[in-house]
């Protein structure tokens, strides 16, 4: 992603990740839901996401 960095929230919206419960890790660090607006993703950051789905 070149140029401007975007927040986690903006990335999720862009990717149409609308699941209510999701685990996001940036460079291996877990990002809590309340931090989605204030954590920004820069060039070269490794972003990973997992949907958490009920059932067990």
């Amino acid at each position, binding site marked *: 992603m070149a140029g401007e960095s975007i927040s986690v929230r903006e990335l999720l919206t862009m990717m149409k990740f609308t699941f209510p419960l999701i685990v996001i*890790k940036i460079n291996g660090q*877990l990002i809590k839901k309340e931090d989605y607006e204030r954590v920004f993703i820069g060039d070269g950051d490794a972003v990973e996401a997992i949907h958490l*789905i009920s059932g067990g």
Partner: protein
Amino acid sequence: MQSKLEKLKGTCVGIAGCGGLGSNCAMALARVGVGSLVIADFDVVTRENLNRQYYFLDQVGQKKVLALRDNIARVNPDVAVEAHDLRLGPDEVVHIFKNCTLIIEAFDRADMKLMIIETVSERFPDKFIIAASGLAGYGENNALRTRRLGSLFICGDETREVSPEMPPLAPRVGIVAAMQANQALEIILDDLALVGDDDAWDEL
């Protein structure tokens, strides 16, 4: 191999939830000889649970943690089982699992899954957590997989949510529970490093 498995005796595994995932995972780990298990659940065994959970008809009405402790003892009495009959929140997770080598997330509700993943990541950065996501219904064997994100492993198809049309059933729940147990063995027996190669987020 047998001498390698001896290593399991000195290992403690925490299991959060004793439903379909937790009961089956606990039995698998007990059979291979994990030294101690810390199990936690607040629920009682119901008739409906028997379509996938490792309990028996004569245990309906019993506390799950006590029934599971009994079942483990009937298979392998050498396993030390610490049973906690309680509802887990962040404080309880930290308190009861602090001496465990690794933790298995075996809840049914997605919000509880998130709670324990966040708690373990924050409070126990040196422990692996093996979670499950997506196991409802039947079929699609090959959709079930394991992904790694640092100290977090996720087993399941990451897609199929439980609903009235898509209930959790013994085969798929059992497969995912066994995947969690199998991942635990790999972590323990192969001394996996906490900082390892993550699986790529190929959906992006």
